[in-house]
């Protein structure tokens, strides 16, 4: 279960897909790597990933964790960004039945969950095929 402090630390990662980039070999990583998986360098810089990608696979989720029940059912997608890094994100503005893999999708910020009606609202990245 996410908490407000952890969420605050992760803002730029969630709002702008800021991962890390290896100073030595240029490889980009999201989720962020502290040590470059390609060349082993420990000199990593924060770096924004492309906000566009391709849908590799998706699943319509009928059963979800408690925090996400309010949004259920939803489509969870495996997205490959333009730089080859992959991530999981809900796919919005689509009808699950007609959804084709391979389509271009882009980042959009949406509400992920909230800590009750009087708690913190957690925003994060989802992906949409709309321009």
């Amino acid at each position, binding site marked *: 279960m996410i908490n407000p402090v952890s969420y605050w630390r992760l803002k730029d990662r969630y709002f702008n897909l800021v991962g890390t980039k290896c100073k030595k070999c240029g490889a980009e990583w999201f989720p962020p790597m502290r040590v470059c998986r390609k060349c082993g360098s420990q000199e990593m810089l924060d770096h924004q990933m492309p906000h566009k990608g391709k849908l590799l696979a998706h699943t319509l989720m009928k059963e979800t964790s408690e925090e996400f029940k309010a*949004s259920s059912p939803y489509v969870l997608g495996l997205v490959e960004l333009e730089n080859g890094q992959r991530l999981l994100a809900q796919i*919005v503005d689509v009808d699950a039945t007609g959804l084709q893999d391979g389509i271009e999708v882009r980042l959009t*910020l949406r509400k*992920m969950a909230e800590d009750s009606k009087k708690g913190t609202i957690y*925003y994060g990245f989802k992906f949409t095929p709309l321009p």
Partner: protein
Amino acid sequence: MKPNSSVGILGYGAYVPIFRLPTSEVGRVWRGEGAGPNKEKAVAHHDEDTFTMACEMARRAVRMAGVTKLGAVLVGTESKPYVVKPTSTILAQALGQHFALAADLEFACKAGTEAMQFNIALVASGMIQAGLAAGVDTAQGRPGDELEYTAASGGAAFVIGRGEEALALFERSTSYVSDTGDFWRRPGEKFPSHLGRFTGEPAYFHHIETCVRAHLEEVGHKPSDYRWAVFHQPNPRFPVEVGLKLGFKMEQMEPGLLNTMIGNTYAGSSLMGLAATLDVAEPGDRILMASFGSGAGSDAFTLIVTDKIVEKRKLGVPVRDMIDRSVKVDYAVYSRFRGKLYE
């Protein structure tokens, strides 16, 4: 109000959610028949709110403007996700802006044009180079109330900056206010209250007419000097009525009239009308925009479109395209989306 130096719009972006509730659904559920004055209204999905929509429109505006720094991020809305905690700082974070003046503005449906007014002043004074003004709402109507036909979600954002780079310049603006309590919400109340037909002549019409007439005199123009006119649109009829009354013609207002398809996006309403008008405007066109906010007041602006609009516009998403991409929902799904099923 005339800015001391040249100020204009560097970029703009609108956003409307894809879901539409036909007003016949509201009629069906509450009256067994009938529909609202508008055909459909735009409804935000459960995971959308004023911030998420503001983010979409602001990112579009910033992309069109091509700026990397914003000296101000001002969000005008009456449906803030947090009553205490600014939406503008969440938006500023999402836009990567930290050294900026961020504030949430409130004045019912005129909060967006207020954000525009302040940005014009900040740029004109040289205090900032460019700033963002957004007017956005996830308007809620009390279930069963007539405002439920029209209360909708959406809005538009504008990057305001120096005239040399603008796609449209601000010639002048005017503001007119009075304490007219036509529509309000007390703390702790979930939905607003209003005085029915009183929201017409003494509120909407009086403030827009008074403001625009004064504005036209200050700026020294007649309605026929304008190519386009945009008015706040709480329903399909009011903006046309006030426009005609002020001496404008139907063709001037056409591109900005969106209420029939998406309803009233409150603080987003006149700004969306402006965005839709800019989507078709040509260099040299003069545009009048007049907003109205309950409580009450009106902001009027005269803008002149420059030749930069042709190329800049290509970087955006036309408002009409966005409106056409729609998915109908019924009253039950709408209720779930808008959280009306749980207290």
